[in-house]
């Protein structure tokens, strides 16, 4: 399991962390913390190379995501579009209610399949 941390300052808690692991041909990305204009470029830096390397199915585990800004949503869409262009897709897992509210308000719940159970999510690919 690979792990990444993005620090704002040495003494602060990392603002965002991403863990990635693989199950069959699906990459499961667990995102923790805040996804905003400051942290989402790092998220992109981490995931776009995976697409370039041939991965196309992603399951984003958002159980520990505290906040997502519109700038981060744009990058998430861009990421999903890249995956879809290669015949894959991005699904979401364990989206917490504040995040779900944001996704719902922008109509994004019609763009992403959202799951509460990991096994079910994996089977859907």
């Amino acid at each position, binding site marked *: 399991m690979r792990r990444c941390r993005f620090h704002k300052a040495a003494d602060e808690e990392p603002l965002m962390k991403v863990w990635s692991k693989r199950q069959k041909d699906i990459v499961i990305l667990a995102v923790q913390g805040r996804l905003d*204009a400051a942290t989402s470029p790092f998220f992109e830096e981490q995931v776009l190379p995976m697409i370039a390397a041939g991965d196309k199915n992603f399951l984003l585990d958002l159980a520990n995501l505290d906040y997502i*800004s*519109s*700038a981060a*949503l*744009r*990058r998430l*869409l*861009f990421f999903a*579009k890249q995956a879809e262009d290669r015949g894959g897709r991005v699904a979401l897992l364990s989206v917490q209610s504040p995040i779900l509210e944001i996704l*719902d*308000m*922008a*109509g*994004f*719940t*019609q*763009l992403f399949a959202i799951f509460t159970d990991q096994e079910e999510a994996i089977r859907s690919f």
Partner: protein
Amino acid sequence: MDSLIYRALVELIQGLAVLMVIAYVMTRIPSFGDLLNRRLSLTHRVILGLVFGLMSIFGTLSSVDIFGGLANFRDLGPAIAGLLAGPVAGGMAGLIGGAHRYSLGGLTAEPCSVATFLAGLIGGFFYLCKKGRPIRIREVTAVMAGITLLHVLVITPLMLGLSNEIRQILKAVLLPMLLVNCAGVALFFFILQNLHRERLNEAEKHRIDSELRIAREIQMGMLPAPSRTGDPRYAVHAVLKPAKEVGGDLYHFFVRDENRICLAVGDVAGKGISASLHMAITQKLLKALAQSGEEPAGLLERLNRELCDGNETMTFVTLLVAFIDLRSGEAVLGNGGHNPPYWIRRGDVSRLVLEPGLALGIREQAVYTNQRLCLKPGDTLFLYTDGVTEAMNAHKELFGDDRLKTALLRVREKDPEAICRGIMEDLAHFVGQSEPSDDITMLVLRLESKEDAAAGAADGC
């Protein structure tokens, strides 16, 4: 003897402080740019020659006695003048410093004054060799070391006839001089280059600032006037405050015909320059399409198709459009992924429940629905962007819907302008000294109650 050399070194370095002051002053004079671009006039070269000639005299006067040998940085001034402005300035400074040294007389008067003059010429020769390429601190320091060693070479013939003791003294003088001269040149050019770079950065920042200011004026100029007066049946007021110079929020207000008005509030994902470009496109398209008379859902669909075209970066826009019929009070709303507005009626504040609809610019086939609402005289609609609810304070707390609702309850009886002002005050109080995290937009409409309105206002739909 070692401690004596050490003390001499400290004293000499103290003398260098004057040189640093000269370096600082030089960077503050207007023709400083010319100095580093080698575009100096002859007058400037002569002035530099004079200044560094005096510096050379200062170097002689602040000599430090080491067993009768005088350690000094007399060569430093002429060398710098040469390195900086060529052989004319260097030679002149060397001549001044050398002449002064010669006038003092003594055993080494002749070779020392000649060496000082040579220091200026060598510096100038290096200047000519550089032919305008950037000066490196390493290079000028090496040149200075060479000059100091040359100085020693020049007085060596004299030393041959001297006693061993005096030779020892001269050797003791050499090390502090070498160190001080090299440190002096390195520090001088270091300060010069640093301040020069800082000045360029400032100029660049100033240029960007002024371009952003113009961009801001253009952007603000695209928005309709914040207040509309003249029709007694309603009052409308808008506030748009970008987090940076330019932003991605937008609002639109226009009168479709004598009985119908249109309101819209939108938010481009992200902020700053990239968002502002999309804001400008959206604002113009909205303005053009809104005149077609199509109802909000159709308007959003057409706008969405336009915004999807070539949107490689997936920059999306959330947009809420409301058409209001002033005769019946009927409001038709279309929502492209935007925060639903608040509705104020007789002291009650509630958030409208709207079907979300997909934000614009993502999927060409997206469809939107018209959602109807019946407004009564005295009702207020509060449209806003998430910059209001997501304003963040120092503890990283968001303003949120609860605080917004409380704030709206406080100002519910007021007119649109006072509502905007009241909410802005609450936001400012909440955010405190924190940097604004997002653009803030509010658009408030109130249908005037019958007593206020001269003409017949809305009477139900």
